[in-house]
């Protein structure tokens, strides 16, 4: 099983941390990532590709090569960080502009035949209250509906690695 790790914290991870050639890591803080501008040209001009050049293609290819994508995020004012949100906003070109029905609701149609399952590691810089955790977990389930996939796990931890290594060995 190929695992993509999209680490949006400022503690970089390396291949050595996992020692597993099925794991691919992207540390988003050390690459160039622009904010989505909402132009929709990834749907209407260059289907599937963002028209603004940055390092997002590397993340998108890593995601699409995986069976499980694990996002790692700090929790800031009770929600995932703007850094992870920046990455997620820019996954829009993975979907198609047409509509489809998922979970009884309208969502965008799949562009690809399959999408990886998704997981979330929340870094507890301060204790994450149970209400904040529930809000994030509930919202992350909705991210999976948008991506036509499932949530494998959501965990909180005080470092990006400890709990994640356990989860990866369980899967």
């Amino acid at each position, binding site marked *: 099983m*190929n695992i993509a790790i999209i680490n949006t914290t400022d503690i970089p991870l390396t291949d050595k941390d996992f020692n597993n*050639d*099925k794991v*691919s890591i992207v540390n988003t803080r050390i690459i160039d990532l622009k*904010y*989505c*501008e*909402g*132009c*929709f040209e990834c*749907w*209407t*001009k*260059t*289907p*599937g*590709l963002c028209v603004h050049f940055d390092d997002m*293609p*590397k993340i*998108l*290819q890593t*995601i*699409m*090569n995986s069976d499980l994508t694990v996002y790692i995020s700090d929790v*800031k*004012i*009770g*929600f*995932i*960080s*703007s*850094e992870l*949100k*920046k990455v*997620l*906003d820019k*996954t829009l070109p*993975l979907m*198609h*502009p*047409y*509509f*489809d*029905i998922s979970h*009884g*609701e*309208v*969502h965008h*149609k799949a*562009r*690809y035949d*399959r999408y990886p399952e998704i997981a979330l590691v929340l870094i507890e810089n301060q204790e994450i209250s149970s*209400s*904040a955790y529930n*809000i994030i977990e*509930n*919202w992350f389930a*909705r*991210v999976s509906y*948008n991506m036509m996939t499932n949530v494998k796990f959501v965990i909180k931890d005080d470092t990006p690695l400890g709990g994640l290594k356990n989860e990866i060995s369980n899967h």
Partner: protein
Amino acid sequence: MKLVIINGSPRGKESNSNVITNWIATGIVKSTQVNKISAIKTDFQRGAKDSTKIIESMQLDKFYTANINTHREAVDSIEDNSTVVVVFPLYGDAMPAITKLFFEELEIIANKKENVKMYYIVHSGFKGANHCRAVERYLVYLTDYLGFKYMGTAIKPGSEGLRLTPVENLLDFTNDFYSLSKDIAKGSDFDVNTLKRLVGFEFPSEEYKIGIKQSNGNTGYFSRILKQNNAFTKCFDKPYQRKSKKSY
């Protein structure tokens, strides 16, 4: 009264959010019932920050989260007794990243300001207010975290066409947003009937879903733009199709 309007769209001034914030600002000006409106010449399209003195006792500042350089100024403009209205489009069932960044910057005034009222307006591309409910829960949490007073979230699904629709076809919405501005100017909760009208429905009807299946999800809107851009034949391209790990 100090009123701070935050346009949370990455599209800045070219956004549907701007149509809504202009309605809100105009509605507030109207509801103060000053006859000097023409003298004020409220032009919310200019500059990174638009500042208008509506009457001696009311100052209105408007900021765009798309302009990161003004985030700090926007935070600083929130004073004791301010009313803040945040309008943003739904992105991935939450706020756009740039607006989340602005929220993170609010942390420096958390529990440091007295009597700040927060109103939110969230609008989405999809119809069905259910898409916005997860972020609505977070907005309640955020406001409490900041030590501000949560005044409500108005949800307007199906907003993508607003900025392209002639104003005369939007009169119902305009009136609903004026009604929200009256509530904001009075400092009261949003009127529940206005909220219900804006929401329309929570989940799409069975007929609507059948229609989507039958049309293969093609709403016409995106096909038209793809054709205009000579990109229609590429619309099902899969540039990130799975590759082996070594090949990229």
